């Protein structure tokens, strides 16, 4: 049970992801980071099937970096989101589709903050707020113990305090 959430503000995007890496019923890691830094102002949040998440996200990450090396400037969040969606779509009807759900959050110097929702069927939607999974604290039968929180603004990506449930 993994959880991602993103909220776009007037000049920032706030994102959070849970910290559990699970294998069936066991929690193998309680401090997993599900956010991948694509560039100085773009984060890709990725959840889904065990190997697919890291493989796909790192593939996108390296290709975005390669674009910067080849062309001298970085991809905009909108371009990165569409690039990601195209890759997901190309693999969808192959023998090896990637089962991943994504949020892409970024700050474009001209267009401002942007949040893009993508799912494993390669849907893409730009949204003011979006989430994957169930993050309810009180009513959900499973509790996710902690969340990594980051915010992206015109200065770049900033880490905020990790949220933990439990006695303070």
């Amino acid at each position: 049970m993994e959880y991602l959430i993103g909220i776009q503000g007037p000049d920032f995007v706030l994102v959070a992801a849970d910290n559990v890496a699970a294998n069936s019923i066991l929690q193998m890691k309680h401090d997993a980071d599900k956010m991948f830094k694509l560039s100085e102002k773009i984060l890709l949040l990725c959840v889904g099937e065990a190997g697919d998440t890291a493989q796909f996200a790192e593939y996108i990450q390296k290709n975005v970096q390669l674009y910067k090396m080849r062309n001298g400037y970085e991809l905009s969040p909108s371009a990165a989101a569409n690039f990601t969606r195209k890759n997901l779509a190309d693999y969808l009807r192959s023998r090896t589709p990637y089962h991943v759900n994504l949020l892409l959050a970024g700050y474009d110097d001209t267009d401002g903050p942007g949040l893009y929702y993508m799912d494993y069927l390669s849907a893409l939607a730009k949204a003011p707020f979006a989430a994957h999974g169930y993050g309810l604290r009180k009513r959900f039968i499973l509790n996710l113990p902690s969340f990594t929180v980051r915010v992206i603004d015109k200065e770049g990506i900033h880490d905020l305090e990790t949220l933990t449930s439990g006695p303070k």
Partner: protein
Amino acid sequence: MITFPLTIITPIHSHLVITSSGSGADCMLWERILAREIRLYHLRHRRRLSICGTAKLLSLMLHPFKGTELCVALTLQDVPVTAHSASPNSGPKLIYVCSDGARLQGDVFSVGSGSPYAYGVLDGGLRWGLSKEEAVSLAREAVFRATHRDAYSGNSVDLFHITAQGWSQRTREDLREEYYRDMKRREKIAEERRRVTTSDG
């Protein structure tokens, strides 16, 4: 018929040790393939591949087989000796790699059908600052309890201790009689306690 001492823990080189679970045949094959690849890297680049690189290489080699019947769940442990001890790549590392594609670095892992039982014991006794004897005893207890309760785990326990100087192996211990020895030990402790309380009271 060919027999050889079957080990779940396989040292690859002086500082890299791999434990395996899942399908025995798949694990034996992939350990050999990995050992070959990192030896080739060593010969080509004149330096050892880091454990993170080894884990990533293994993960990438297993990826094409995702969705097939291949079942391999390995943990790689390494204490690299590096010239710059302040670099983030130094220090002991433990990485879990499986045929599903997962690759996780962490402080403690238990893998296999008996892992829930082992986790139970491990999580109860684990803390930073354990002495070597305490750690060995905790690990041995975790394996013992898992082999007792899990139908697919059993026989004996191997213990490897890895430091910057390399790995060292404790003699293999048979656990088949261990349960009864443990029962007798507990009975003795309970009797002692009863004797002390009745003599006090």
